[in-house]
C-alpha cells in the first residue's frame, strides 16, 4: 500500500518537473498534492495529510494560476503596448 503511494508520488513529482508550461504544471502539482496526502495517510500521518490537502491541492495551484494569469494579462512590452 505504501509502495503504491510512493511510486505515485515519484511519478507525479517527475511529471510536475517535466511539465514546462506553468498552467499545466499547476494541474499536475494539484494532483501531486492529493497523491502526497494519500501517501501521508498510508504513513499514518493524517494531520500532515490534511494540511497537504489544504495547501497542495487548493492553495498552491491557485496562487500559481493567479500568477500565470497576471503575467499573461500584462501587455508584453515590445509586442502590444496597450
Amino acid at each position: 500500500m505504501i509502495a503504491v503511494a510512493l511510486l505515485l508520488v515519484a511519478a507525479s513529482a517527475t511529471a510536475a518537473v517535466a511539465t514546462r508550461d506553468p498552467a499545466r504544471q499547476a494541474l499536475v502539482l494539484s494532483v501531486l498534492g492529493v497523491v502526497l496526502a494519500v501517501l501521508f495517510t498510508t504513513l499514518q500521518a493524517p494531520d500532515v495529510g490534511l494540511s497537504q490537502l489544504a495547501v497542495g491541492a487548493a492553495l498552491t495551484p491557485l496562487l500559481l494560476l493567479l500568477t500565470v494569469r497576471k503575467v499573461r494579462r500584462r501587455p508584453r512590452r515590445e509586442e502590444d503596448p496597450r
Partner: protein
Amino acid sequence: MDVLPYLVAGWVFLAGCYGLATSRNLIHAVGCLSVCQAGTYVLLLAVGYRDGGTAPVFSDLKPGTRPVVDPVVQALALTDVVVGATVTALLLALVVQVAKRHGTVDPDELGELRG
C-alpha cells in the same frame, strides 16, 4: 522496501533541483521548488514510520492498544508544509513583480545583474 521510501524522497528532491536549474519560466521554477520540498516531507515522515503502527491520535483509539508512529516528525512535517506554502506565496509575489518590471519571466532574458 527497506529503503524505497528514502530513495523516493531523494529522487523527488533531486528531480525538483533539476527542474529548477533547467527551468525556462520562473513560475515553473517556483513549482519545482515546491517539488523539492515535497522530498523533505517524504523523508521526514518515512523516518518516523513504524511497521504496523497507526497515528498517535487517541480520539478514536484507546492509548496503548496499538503501536503508534512517531508524532514528532509529523509535527516537523506540518511546520514544513506551512513554511513551504508561505515561501511559495512570497516567491510568486516576487515573480509577479519581475514580470512587471522586466516584461518577461524567462530567466534567460534577465541579464541585468552580471559580473
